[in-house]
């Protein structure tokens, strides 16, 4: 870690760089991307990448939402014929794929990409180019999974894609190949993104930001990223084996030749359940960090909530069988996984009571983001309790594969992901754009979304208890499901109207929103110490952090230590930031950060084209694309002078504070 070569030792200058100073201008020049399309393709600025993630994922949310609305029209009454069974199957599959894979995690990656360096007091993520690559592959994988949609050949076996229905015998079109290859491609994006988050947390925090001072969002994303690194291989493998079965003639899942359909279910859910937590824990982090701002006090039980975050994921690896209670596994095995599924709600209880206590002991300020976070708490409780009901093995034998599960998972995914995300956009929009969002429209959007959501999704519990199975494209009126379905369909359109109000608000506020200033909510964390929107270099000087609430510490009884935000390391000999130790965040090394480069775009593009070649069986094209990919990687990695220490050795020792 520390350079042994004394010639390369250099002690960074400590100073101030107020806006408009020469130092500040120099920094801007070093960090800003080129204007125009060249800069657009080559930027590695985490803020730009983060916003791209958020916008792209939100577009996928809208596409998935439209798919859902079409399905709700079909299900609004009995025996409707708006859709054929095959169209319906493609729609619910793409709805699930889109929401779970192309919206839920990417949107949180967007928030984390944008916010992490700003919250941690760094000038960028550890691997900026990897960050760009992760976005490009996500975008291409998303497009990839939609290529067959206009041809009426979209994936149609559900997002869970059980074999043998998704195998070569029962699903002969390109539908499942698109899904399988798309998932392997997307897995690469998620993996490199996760590596970046993990290393960033342990190396890139501002001096003084000890491990017990990082925001909960960071804990959430860290936990999710570690989990992704452990479980993405499982799902990528499953989809790759399925592709081999389909295209090469292997027999991993082929019953006639000794293959095992149950193997798919294990590989899928070993990934699938931790993934559920990966797409809610960072969103819970958003609430844990932003809710206190509107309660005018810090989060109650920071350490408990951080530990609960990790405990959730730890137990989360032990519950995948609860998706498979009905597969005929022995009762003893089921009881163990059932018990673990009960236990996993204990850390959730910690978080719920921490949030309520924070509101109770604080002084709530009823701004739009706060409404979303407070509303989220009750949706979280409903979704959690319906989850507890499904943890009871015998009851799950009834609830499983009914609309009760549909209700449960939508309370979890909309309640714990979409509500915090929309609240989070209201909260950080001023930071993203420098403008406030409209409060009046904001409150309307919350209430319409909240009411529409509950009117739409609560009756789904009843449909499930009345025995309505999932994934049926129509039903007969003698089943007794007419009324609940009609109410659900009405509610879903009300919810959609709420989302529409939100979008209008975004569009108007982008142009006409009131100027925000650097800290419009009087919040506590580092991202609010920099201008809105933040400059390319984030921090003119690297801050020194002395507490969990750097911007509140003057007004809190937090001892005598004070964070230093105006004065710190200048670090302006090229793109530089400081690397710190994993636990205590003691400064260790000056990190030379790579400059903008279009190579991540090309690596992503060539890789995606290689996958397209595999889909079309253009093998030589695939080979050519992989070769291009390798060449692009070599250009990417080519040693650059700018990344070496250029200063002459200075007499003083290693950087320290």
């Amino acid at each position, binding site marked *: 870690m520390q350079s042994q070569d004394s010639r390369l030792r250099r002690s960074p200058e400590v100073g101030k760089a107020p806006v408009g100073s020469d130092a500040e201008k120099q920094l801007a020049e070093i960090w800003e991307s080129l204007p125009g399309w060249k800069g657009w393709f080559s930027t590695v600025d985490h803020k730009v990448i983060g916003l791209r993630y958020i916008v792209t994922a939100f577009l996928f949310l809208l596409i998935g939402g439209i798919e859902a609305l079409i399905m709700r029209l079909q299900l609004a009454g009995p025996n409707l014929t708006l859709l*054929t*069974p095959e169209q319906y*199957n493609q729609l619910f599959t793409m709805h699930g794929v889109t929401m779970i894979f192309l919206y839920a995690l990417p949107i949180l990656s967007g928030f984390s990409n944008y916010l992490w360096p700003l919250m941690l007091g760094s000038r960028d993520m550890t691997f900026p180019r990897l960050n760009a690559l992760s976005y490009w592959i996500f975008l291409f994988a998303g497009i990839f999974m939609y290529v067959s949609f206009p041809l009426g050949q979209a994936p149609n*076996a559900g997002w869970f894609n*059980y074999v*043998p229905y998704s195998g070569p015998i*029962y699903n002969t079109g390109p539908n499942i190949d698109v899904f399988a290859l798309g998932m392997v491609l997307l897995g690469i994006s998620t993996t490199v993104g996760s590596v970046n988050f993990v290393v960033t947390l342990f190396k890139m925090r501002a001096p003084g930001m000890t491990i017990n001072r990082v925001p909960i969002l960071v804990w959430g994303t860290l936990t999710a990223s570690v989990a992704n690194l452990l479980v993405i291989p499982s799902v990528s493998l499953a989809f790759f084996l399925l592709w081999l079965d389909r295209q090469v003639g292997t027999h991993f899942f082929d*019953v006639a030749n000794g293959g*095992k*359909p*149950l193997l798919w279910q294990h590989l899928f859910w070993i990934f699938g359940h931790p993934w559920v937590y990966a797409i809610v824990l960072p969103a819970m982090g958003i609430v844990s960090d932003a809710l206190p701002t509107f309660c*005018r*006090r*810090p989060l*109650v*039980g920071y350490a408990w909530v951080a530990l609960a975050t990790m405990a959730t994921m730890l137990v989360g690896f032990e519950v995948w069988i609860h998706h498979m209670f*009905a*597969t*005929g596994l022995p009762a003893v095995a089921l*009881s163990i996984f059932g018990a673990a599924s*009960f236990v996993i*709600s204990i850390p959730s*209880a910690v978080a*719920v009571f*921490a949030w*309520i206590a924070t*509101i*109770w*002991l*604080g*002084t709530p300020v009823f701004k739009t983001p706060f409404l979303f976070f*407070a509303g989220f708490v*009750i949706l979280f*409780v409903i979704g959690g*309790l319906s989850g507890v*009901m499904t*943890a*009871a*093995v*015998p*009851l799950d*034998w*009834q609830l*499983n*594969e009914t609309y009760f599960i549909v209700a449960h998972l939508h309370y979890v995914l909309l309640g714990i992901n979409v509500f915090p995300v929309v609240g989070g956009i209201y909260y950080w929009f001023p930071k993203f754009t420098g403008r406030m969002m409209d409060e009046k429209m904001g409150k309307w959007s919350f209430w319409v979304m909240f009411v529409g959501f509950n009117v739409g999704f609560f009756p789904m519990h009843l449909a499930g*208890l*009345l*025995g309505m*199975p999932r994934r049926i494209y*129509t039903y007969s009126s*003698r*089943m*007794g499901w007419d*009324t609940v379905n009609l*109410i659900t369909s009405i509610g879903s359109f009300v919810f959609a109207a709420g989302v529409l109000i939100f979008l209008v608000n975004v569009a108007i506020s982008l142009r006409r929103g009131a100027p925000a200033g650097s800290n419009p909510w*009087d919040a506590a964390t580092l991202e609010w110490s920099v201008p809105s929107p933040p400059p390319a270099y984030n921090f003119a000087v690297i801050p020194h952090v002395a507490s*969990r609430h750097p911007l509140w510490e003057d007004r*809190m*009884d*937090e001892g005598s230590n004070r964070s230093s935000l105006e004065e710190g390391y200048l670090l302006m000999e090229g793109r530089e930031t400081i690397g710190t130790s994993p636990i205590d965040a003691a400064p260790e090394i000056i990190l030379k950060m790579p400059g903008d480069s279009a190579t991540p775009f090309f690596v992503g593009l060539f890789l995606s084209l290689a996958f397209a070649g595999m889909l079309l069986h253009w093998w030589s094209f695939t080979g050519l694309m992989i070769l291009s990919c390798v060449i692009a990687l070599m250009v990417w990695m080519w040693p650059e002078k700018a990344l070496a220490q250029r200063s002459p050795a200075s007499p003083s020792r290693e950087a320290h504070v």
Partner: protein
Amino acid sequence: MEQQFHLSAVPENTWQNLHTIFLSAAVLALSGSANAAKVAEAPLNYFMRSHGPAAEPTKYLGWMLTGLSLTIILIISLLLIAALLRNRPLMDMRAIGPESGGLRWIYIGTGVSTFILFGLVIYSLIVLDAVAKPPSTPAIIVTVTGYDWWWRIEYEHDDPEQAVTTANELHIPVGQPVLIKLKSADVIHAFWVPTLAGKTQMIPGLINQQWIQADTPGVYTGQCAQFCGAGHAHMSLEVVAESAEDFEKWRNTQRHPVSFPFKAGSTGEFGQKLFMDRCAGCHAIRGTDAAGGHGPDLTHLKSRRILAAGLLPNTPENLMNWIANAQRFKPGARMPSINLTEAEKLALSTYLSTLD
């Protein structure tokens, strides 16, 4: 037609009656529905109705968990509303509260939750134990095989002559456990008769088991509960529970191969010939040359209540309609829509009407 189509069992006693009324009221108050009876008698409504020991403990577990969940949601909502709206002394908005304090909320809240959760683990394990295995060894074993999109039902017997094969209609005697062996001929399906028991997947290459028992005579609807393709919505079955004597009578009838009542040159004989030419490749009729195994065994077709895995009631008109328009009723099914002239229709119909 719809009335005839499902017989709702009468609740056994007043106590249960009261429960049913109370629960229907609760469900209806929530759903805001006007047609109470229809919802309460929804054929797959396992929440309010159970008709055997494999389902009943689960029903009570469901009530208990639902009641508990609603109570907790109410308490948390009240706490949240109180936290949001409680009176506070006017405060300078620049002031920030101290970080310490409030941990008691977490300790008490999590402590109580943990206590409840452990209680639930124990209760759910007790229920699991009660429903996982039948109280006595089942005397009757039935193999149900899932197909895209119907159910083959086979009653085993050491003497193959005595075995019975039928489709989509599972007859059981009341008051005794019946073991069901679950297989699949193609993709994964799930066997689910909600008012009698929970669901179990039918996985190709595996034989799963489950047991059911009906305590009152009646017809109980079942439904495939695992997505299995285009016809998944139309893959239901019926369990007909009847007295032991009626069940034996039914089984004896089903054991008989069909007889040949047709005179040479009659319409029926023409119909039979037509069947052998056009249908026998997939369908079997015991006692004839028709031995196809891809589709349902039609030996006693006329005795069945439903057609096409529950899509239509079994009437002569529906049967001919189904034969002519199978692909319209169930797109993607292996049963083709079959073009027949009027004379052929009449003949086939005449022949099929003898399969009782």
